[in-house]
């Protein structure tokens, strides 16, 4: 059924008015044959018969002219927006362009809205995924925090147990010191009993010192502040000293004690003598302490720059379970007596590791223990005469041989009185001061032969005072005698460093040595 003519005319008129058709007839080489309609709106100007339309309308490039084709919304190089229709006819092709700006604007607004919505949705999805990741991370972090909290609680509980244990360890010798001091001070105590009291007090004080030293060593190892002092020393003398120290203790318990040193072991080695002694004393001390019958042996071999020292005993041994725990801080094997700070083996292991060495333990319960340490040490030449002299045991010649003066800077009256007593008895003239500012003034004024300096005293402190004295031109020895823990750089401010409580005989020997050197 056909539409009435007036309606057709009306629609045709409207369509032509809205779309402003422009029509081209192209031959098979895209050349213009003819054209109809208004071309002013579509940017296709200067169209001449015979011209290649692909130059003017590049969208025709590549398009075949042999099939009906329809393209919606082409934005041309001239920025017109067209619907393009290609209608082939007997070897030629009509190209019809319709103005599509109005439809394009409506479509663009609609599509823009849809796309922005989809973009927003994509971003939301991404955000949600990121949130999930963050929540997952948060859960993981909370889990880790919970682990850390539990670790901290365990550590705190261990520390509390340790403090309780240490409190007991400290109270025992302290009680002994207090009680025996009171006994010694009592009016009716005989001279003989006073002597015994003093010996007991001295023994308890030394035990306290060893506890403090062990704790400090452990703390320094924890903080990575323990440094090795390596030098050439006579290894055989170390073994002799250890035998001299341990053999009587073993003999008291009816134990055999043997030292076996392979001839390959060098006389002199380069290592930290003090720390090596500390490790071996600990191992041998434990062996003697826990062995009830049989023997304790120390054996040394040397090969390829590695010194191997074995300490073996015939004691109760250590079970496999306890062997795992025996090196742990604050742990002691269950078969062992519950005395001491429990740090000895831990410190020994850590010291050997610090020396780049290894410690191993072989033990069968009931058949004794065999600790083996292996450390890299370099064989060296004999120590110099000076070193030998430094190692010489102090004796009666610790007495000063000519009048010399020492300035003591310490705010502890008891300590000053004690040192004063010994130095005065050794023939030294004394100058005392309880703060560093005054000590500097007196030193520069009286020019003593040596300054003995505590570090934690009023004023600028012992380290700064020593440095200032050097800057002021004081060239005599400055010896630190302090309970403070100085690092290597701070120690370098002094000629020598002694930690309280220092053995008095050793201190006097060093003072004499230094004052006579100068």
């Amino acid at each position: 059924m056909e539409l009435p003519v007036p309606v057709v005319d009306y629609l045709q008129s409207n369509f032509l008015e809205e779309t402003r058709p422009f029509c081209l007839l192209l031959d098979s080489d895209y050349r213009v044959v003819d054209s109809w309609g208004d071309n002013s709106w579509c940017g296709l100007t200067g169209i001449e018969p015979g011209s290649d339309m692909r130059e003017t309308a590049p969208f025709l490039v590549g398009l075949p002219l042999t099939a009906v084709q329809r393209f919606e919304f082409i934005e041309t190089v001239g920025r017109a927006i067209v619907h393009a229709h290609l209608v082939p006819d007997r070897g030629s092709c009509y190209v019809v362009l319709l103005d599509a700006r109005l439809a394009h604007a409506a479509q663009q607004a609609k599509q823009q809205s849809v796309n922005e919505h989809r973009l927003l949705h994509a971003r939301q999805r991404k955000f949600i995924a990121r949130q999930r990741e963050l929540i997952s991370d948060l859960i993981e972090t909370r889990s880790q925090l919970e682990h850390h909290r539990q670790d901290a609680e365990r550590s705190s509980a261990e520390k509390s147990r340790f403090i309780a244990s240490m409190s007991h360890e400290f109270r025992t010798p302290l009680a002994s010191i207090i009680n025996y001091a009171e006994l010694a001070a009592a009016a009716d105590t005989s001279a003989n009993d006073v002597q015994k009291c003093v010996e007991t007090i001295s023994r308890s004080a030394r035990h306290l010192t060893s506890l403090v030293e062990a704790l400090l060593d452990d703390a320094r190892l924890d903080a990575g502040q323990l440094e090795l002092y390596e030098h050439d020393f006579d290894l055989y003398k170390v073994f002799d000293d250890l035998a001299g120290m341990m053999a009587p203790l073993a003999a008291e318990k009816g134990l055999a004690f043997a030292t076996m040193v392979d001839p390959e072991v060098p006389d002199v080695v380069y290592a930290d003598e003090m720390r090596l002694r500390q490790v071996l004393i600990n191992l041998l001390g434990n062996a003697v302490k826990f062995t009830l019958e049989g023997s304790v042996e120390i054996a040394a071999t040397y090969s390829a720059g590695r010194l191997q020292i074995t300490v073996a005993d015939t004691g109760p041994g250590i079970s496999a379970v306890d062997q795992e725990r025996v090196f742990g801080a604050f742990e002691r094997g269950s078969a062992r007596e519950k005395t001491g700070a429990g740090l000895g083996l831990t410190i020994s292991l850590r010291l050997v590791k610090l020396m780049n060495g290894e410690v191993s333990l072989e033990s069968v319960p009931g058949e004794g223990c065999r600790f083996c340490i292996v450390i890299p040490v370099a064989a060296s030449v004999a120590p110099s005469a000076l070193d030998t002299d430094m190692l010489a045991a102090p004796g009666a010649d610790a007495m000063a041989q000519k009048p010399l003066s020492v300035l003591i800077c310490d705010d502890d009256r008891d300590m000053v009185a004690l040192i004063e007593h010994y130095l005065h008895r050794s023939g030294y003239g004394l100058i005392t001061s309880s703060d560093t500012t005054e000590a500097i003034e007196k030193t520069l004024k009286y020019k003593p032969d040596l300054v003995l300096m505590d570090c934690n005293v009023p004023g600028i402190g012992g380290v700064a005072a020593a440095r200032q004295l050097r800057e002021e031109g004081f060239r005599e020895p400055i010896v630190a005698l302090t309970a403070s823990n100085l690092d290597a750089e701070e120690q370098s401010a002094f000629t020598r460093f002694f930690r309280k409580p220092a053995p008095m005989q050793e201190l006097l020997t060093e003072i004499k040595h230094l004052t006579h050197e100068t």
Partner: protein
Amino acid sequence: MTRLTSKVCVVGDFAVGKTSVVERFVSNHFSAKYLSTVGVKIDTKEIEQSALGVTHKLVVWDVAGSDRFGDKEFAYLRGASGYIFVADGTRALTIESVKTIQSQIGDKYGDAPSVLLLNKRDLTAEWEVNDERFESLQASFNGAFKTSAKTGDEVEDAFKRLAQLIVENELRGK
């Protein structure tokens, strides 16, 4: 110099930056405002390929974004000599759209030179494509580029690479 004119179609999902890379390539300009393309935009640019002795005019069809093509889109691609596939490196899903379109075009029109542009490389904090995946994508196209229409990074390189592939294809008489 031989003169050559080729139709190149730029395709990919919506809002991956197709219009922006074309504008960067043709006019060396960038606008941050997102304006959705309806239908297709035509642009041209002439490049010299001295090594091949060709003055190459590229007629670039910037096709409206879609994750899957229908008849209307396929009509736009008729007679294309090569394709620029564009994905958004901050939306890894748009790579899947590119793969779908690539497969559809292959089925409809057969093989033609193509390169992949992973666009928006300037948005490093939001980048979702790791190196391993990028390498595997390089193997799936004749070349893959991490581009930024904003900074211009690698945009021209990508178009030139496609142009070179088209010329080589023409010279082989394909």
